[in-house]
Each structure stands twice: as C-alpha cells, then as structure tokens.
C-alpha cells in the first residue's frame, strides 16, 4: 500500500481510540452496558489500526508471527463487544440476534485460531481462515447498517409527534452510514483478496475504496460522537421546518 494509505488508517485508529476512551469514561459515569461495549470495541479496533499499519509506515520489515497473531487477536476480540452492543441496543432478548452474535463470534475465533496455528493468514480467497474471519467481521457491519436505517425511519415518525430528539434520529442514520462504510471497506478487502488469489497485487481501486471508506467512517463518527453546534442547529432547524410543513399540509 501507499504511505498515505497507512497514514489514513493510523489517523482513523487514533480517532477510534479517542472515541473509545470517551465512551469508556461515559460508561464509568452512567454504569450502563451499551457505551461500555461500544467503548471496548473502538478502543481495541483503534489499537489494531495503529499496530497493524505502524510497522509498514515506519518501514519495519516483517514482524514475528507471534506479534502478528497478537495484533490480529486484538481485532477479533474487539468485534465481539460490537456484536453485543448491536444486540443490546436494537434486539434485546431476540433469539435470532443471539444466534447472529454466537455465529459471528465462532467465525471470528475459528478464523483467528486456524490462522494462528498455521502461521498467519493471507488476504486471499484461497485461505479459508481469512474467509471465515471475514464473514465474522462483515456481518456486524451489515447488521449495524440495517438496524440504523430501520431505527432512523421509525425515529423520524417519533420526531413528528415529539417523542424523539431530532439529533438522536439523525444519530441512527449516522450509524447506518458508518455500517455501510465499514461494509464497503470489507468489500474492498474482498476484492483485494480476489486480486491476491489471482496472483496479482492490490489495485489502486481496492486501496482507494479502503481509504475513502476510512475517511468517511471517521467523519461520520465525528458527527455522531462530537456533533458541532452548527450541525445540531442544522438538524433541529430541518426537523422544525418538516413538522411545520406537515402541520400545514
């Protein structure tokens, strides 16, 4: 990859670390589980982004397989609380949601275990460990995208009758967009795996898509976790004008 791609990924990782730290502090104050789960996810994912990309950016040749596996396990362990967060926020007590959490966790751990035992996986369609793990971390991204979109549609109805804050309704949409960007990043990784398995190298298309989705993800989460005053006012103003036009109609 290009140096700029490593830099973008490390910058995204630092942002995730900041978001994770803020969420963990929030959970310390509220004692609630959802922010704790999301905080652990962002803290571990942020660490993974930095540790995975820093050696390449710094020109460090090859890390030992033990270190590489350790870095991979940080990500695998980090996705599990994200799955629990989606379940606890949107589908508490749902049997199918529990099945998705268990299925994805098994895929993540099986993929990481097989790759650890076989000396690390390659990003290739021919590597079953990579493909199993890929399913484990792509499904939660699609799930988040779907739940965010559904919740946004319902929340917009609640906004009209004063049962939901417009900024909260918008936050559902932002999380749907985050899920979509992460799904696109996973898809670009799959195209990269296809290129690798065909004997080629990653093309600028899959690298470019990965970079764009990382930048978009950070921008979206910035609006979700640290919404500037001007953005809040824009969302409130838009909701107010919508309810006015609905009343007139």
């Amino acid at each position, binding site marked *: 990859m290009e140096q700029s791609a490593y830099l973008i990924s490390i910058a995204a990782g630092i942002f995730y670390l900041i978001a994770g730290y803020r969420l963990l502090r929030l959970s310390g104050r509220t004692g609630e589980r*959802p922010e704790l789960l999301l905080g652990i996810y962002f803290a571990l994912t942020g660490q993974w982004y930095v540790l995975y990309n820093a050696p390449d950016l710094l020109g460090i040749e090859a890390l030992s397989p033990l270190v590489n596996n350790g870095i991979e396990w940080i990500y695998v362990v980090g996705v599990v609380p994200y799955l629990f967060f989606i379940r606890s*926020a*949107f589908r508490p007590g749902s049997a199918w949601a529990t099945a998705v959490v268990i299925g994805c966790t098994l895929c993540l751990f099986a993929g990481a275990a097989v790759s650890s035992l076989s000396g690390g996986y390659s990003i290739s369609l021919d590597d079953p460990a990579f493909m199993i793990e890929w399913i484990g971390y792509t499904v939660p991204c699609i799930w988040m995208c779907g739940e965010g979109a559904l919740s946004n549609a*319902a929340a917009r109805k*609640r906004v009209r*009758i*004063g049962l939901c804050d417009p*900024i*909260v309704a918008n936050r559902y949409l932002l999380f749907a967009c985050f899920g979509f960007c992460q799904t696109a990043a996973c898809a670009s990784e799959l195209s990269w795996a296809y290129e690798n398995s065909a004997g080629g190298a990653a093309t600028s298309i899959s690298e470019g898509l990965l970079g764009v989705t990382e930048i978009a993800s950070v921008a979206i989460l910035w609006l*979700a976790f640290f919404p500037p005053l001007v953005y809040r006012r824009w969302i409130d103003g838009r909701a107010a004008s919508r309810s006015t036009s609905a009343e007139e109609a």
Partner: protein
Amino acid sequence: MADALFDIAAERLEESSDMDRLAARGTLRLALKAAGLDANRLTIPQLRTVFEKIMPKELEARGVADAAASCKTAMGAIERAASENELAASNSPDEIFKRLGGS
C-alpha cells in the same frame, strides 16, 4: 415487561371504546406503527403521546363515539394498571443513542 404494557393498553382500549379484542389490539398496533414505536419496548410517556395525538383519529376512523374521551379514559386506566411495568428508560435505543453523543 413492555409486552405486558401493550397487553394492558389493548385491554383498556377495548373496555373504553367498545371495540372487540382483535380490533383493539389491531388499532393499537397501527397507532404504534404510525408513531414509529416498537410494541415490545413501550414506555408510559410514549403511550400517553400516542393516546393524545394519534389514537383519537384512529378511533374516529373506526366509528367510535367520543374518541377523545375514550382515549383519556383508556390512558388513565393504563397508567393506574401499568405504573410498575414500565420499561426502564435507560435501556431504550433512543436513550442509548442520546447518551452516545453526550446530548
């Protein structure tokens, strides 16, 4: 618990509007859908808003006489019957996503 709240609300609506059980439950489900609410995660304040802003029109559309009074009677009965069954507000998705942005 919210399932119980839906059941209580449907029963009280049935009593106050002279609709049969099926019609009361169906009307309540339609009103909740129009309000963007999940029947499994209801709270008393949400139901109060539904019975004030949406349900009167739904009852009028079904030919219920004095729909507004029926809604008021039903809501009063729901609040008396269900005060202990309310879902903890901190667990609702809206509350979770409100906290995430620090708002």
